[in-house]
């Protein structure tokens, strides 16, 4: 089902200042064999990213220190094949447009269905794998 090599777990990074989001996603994705790290701030999340890159990043848009747009910008700059999914409370067309220019993979509105996110993550992994194959 997931597109990772069977002995190489997929790596998922979650950044959301509401800690319950990370807790929940850890619970779910770890049981699918993902290696998952969760953060409530952007800065330490980026530090983790630099130490060992992730395949997919799920980040909240509005956060106190570093917002989701900045996470997106940095991730895409450093690791162009890593896919970024942004969680947002509402749809603001200007932000959405800017995020598209920065290469966001998908938007997701809270509260969201887990199945929706799982589906997005799998598609993101597939897209990344295609890139890596061509890369």
């Amino acid at each position, binding site marked *: 089902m997931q597109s990772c090599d*069977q*002995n*190489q*777990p997929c790596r998922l990074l979650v950044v959301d200042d509401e800690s*319950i989001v990370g807790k*929940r996603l850890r619970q*779910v994705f770890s049981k699918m*064999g993902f290696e998952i790290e969760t953060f409530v701030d952007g800065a330490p999340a980026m530090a983790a990213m630099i130490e060992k890159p992730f395949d997919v990043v799920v980040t909240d848009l509005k956060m106190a220190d570093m917002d989701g747009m900045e996470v997106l910008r940095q991730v895409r700059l450093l690791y162009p094949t890593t896919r970024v999914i942004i969680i947002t409370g509402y749809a603001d067309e200007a932000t959405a447009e800017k995020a598209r220019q920065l290469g966001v993979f998908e938007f997701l509105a*809270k509260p969201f269905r887990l199945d929706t996110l799982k589906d997005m993550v799998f598609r993101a992994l597939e897209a990344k794998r295609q890139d890596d194959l061509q890369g």
Partner: protein
Amino acid sequence: MAPRFQPLDPGLAPASFAASFHRFRRILDLNNAVIETIAELERALAGEYVFDRKFLRESVDRLNELLREVIFSLNALADNRYLDLYNRYEEIAGRLTILAAGFGGPYDHSLVLPYDLVDGDLNELVGSKNATLGEIRNHLGLAAPNGFAVTRVAYQQFMEGNDLFVQIDAVLAGANGNRERADRIALLFDQARFPEPLVETLARELEALLEHCGGPVDLAVRSSGVGEDDGPRSFAGQFHSVLGVRPEIQAVLAAYRQVVASRFSAAALEYMGKTALSRDLPMAVAVQEMIPARTSGILYSRDPERPDSGLMLISAVRGLAEELVAGRVAADRYTVNRLHPFDLVESAILPEPPSSGPEQNALRILPSGLRRGSAMLLPEMLKRLAETALLLEKTLGGPQDLEWAIGRQLVILQSRPLVLPRLPPPPPAEITSELAAAKPLLQGKGEAAQLGIAAGNVYHVDDDTDPDLFPVGGIAVARFPSPQLSPIVLRAAAIITDVGGPTGHLATIAREYRTPALFGTGEATAVLTEGAEVTVDVENKRIYPGILAGLVRLQAAQASEAEPYLRSAEVQALRRLLRWVAPITLVDPGAADFTPAGCRTFHDILRFSHEKAVDALIHLHASPQGSKGVRSRPLRVAVPIKLRVIDLGSGLSPAAAATTGVVTMDMVQSQPLVALLAGLQKETAWDREPAPLDFKDVLASMSRPLSMLTNAPAYVGENLAIIAERYCNLSLRLGYHFNVVDAYLSQEPDDNYIYFRFVGGFADKTKRARRVKFIAAVLAGLSFKVNSQGDLLVAKAKTLDAGRMVSILTMLGELIAFTRGLDVHMRDEAAVEHHFQKFLHKVRVLPVGDKE
């Protein structure tokens, strides 16, 4: 919310009817909106949604608004007869607002709380020991002592009222060594005075407890520290318990003083270390009845030295286990398999104590009449203990260390997390390869009703399964999530169904018992074979063949981290608020507590309001102002019935509006009336060929007990149909009996209902009652819930799709015609059966057994 019915034509409908019907429709719409919101919250708790605090606040605001309008609309419809509902509403809405805002709840300032009000959610207020016992008594239905909690608020008042924290801090900073510190702190406690409000409240609660116990009983006063059982350390045995306390306020106060003082004993100070602050670990206290124990002991649900060995340890002594807890006496020891049927693996039985008194000697004769060997626990009781331990392990979220006693029955005195060496979770790579090798039997199907992972053997169950025979720890697989399965859900390690979703009654039960539950898979009963070993991962909607050890260990490791998600403030708040929203406790409209005051949850208020709204509408035209001045018109039908119609809007075609006088069938647009009359006018239906059908369910319904019912109807009018496009209220006198059918038929199954009331007759009472029995049998086979008493019968059917509504209404029409004058033929009980069969064979019956 867009109205789902056509605007009413004021020219056709009288104002009072139109307005009432409007209100009724509004209540139905509100009803749906509430149910949707509850469902959304339940789905969030079930784990389907990722949510946050904002979502909780918004949902509660919405619920509060909707419910207020439901009550308003009902009162507008029913002449303000139910204003009392506002009292219950205000109380519940207030609680919800507080909970959603992140505060603890309505008891936050209570000094004491009786165990009837305590559950696991009140941990922070009453401490772990009290909270767990409340959960065990009130939600798991296991026996635990009566008692009450003296809360941390009481503790703070006591401590601060005597300036104890400040003084203790001074001692801790000054004195040398924990022994000296403890001695000086003990003096402070000796001199402390009890605040008057605390004494008064305690005295009142003590009186209530003794009354509850049926008279004076000795008491146990124990510590229940807030956070005592959390985290890596266990404070087991660190704090003082006082047993055999006389049931008097002064004795209880003295014991309370000793217990809270033990928080600062030399041993406790040593144990907590230098960094601990005086305000850490606030001491809530438990005051409980003493259980007269014949045998008592300790159970570890896993072997602490070999947690993965699949064994549990039980030790037992005669009488009270206090000495055993304190490690001062030796005991019988048993090692039992954790898996059903919980075989005894090993036992170490002590020789008889030489000092056995006469009382113990008397107990050596077992209830079986056999003289006891030397073992204190028989296999049957070992099994019962093992089952109980597994239930607690599941519902409390991890291995347990429990203290039990057997007097008249098995009583749980205490249960707390068993501290085990922490195992590292299996590395992701191990899970990845384990999953890569496993081919799921079922994948991506169904909806999560309660999260979790479980492994065990498959057992197929249905309504007829005896719960006591279901092996604790088995995986229950059922076709329907029927409420009858509740006791099985308690015992099962997981439950999987073909049909259903996360919002039904059984889903609520699964969350209450924390039984992983996956509902609506469509194929579980077909795919999962009886006895097969499987691993269920509800989060990911996958069921694997065999036991996936890595996955099970991952779950255990996450649980030992105190399950960060399930323990998060948001999830706890959601759980708590759903307890005030989702359950329906008012089930029977005929019951004495079916009143506004009897409503305990929002769902109760909704249920009550819906019932009373239907009632008000049905009886509207029977009221004095009802049909006065109403423009009704005769309807020409093919059978000799005089019937008039009142159109509330779109019940008749525009062609009818253009004419006056008699209305013909082709002008009737009211879908429920058309369906009813189709049956009622079908004289030929009685001459039909028998249909080959399965009547098992219909026949079975005859043996069900019929509960009592309310008053007879107060109708005095003539044959009348009040109609709208999707609504029909038909009052019909046929022969000497009287029928009322009230039905709503739309594309929205949740809105649809049929209400049928039948009363009277010509023949004697017994014969009329037999006819009712016959009708009840037929209706029960047609998805109706039936209540009857004597010759009065009330039947309701709900949540049917439009197609079934039409067929059932048609059947009902046939039945009404068929039963006309039938009572005269009901000479004996056999006649009931005879006519029942005759009806089934002569008239088309819907496929039965479809419980959806």
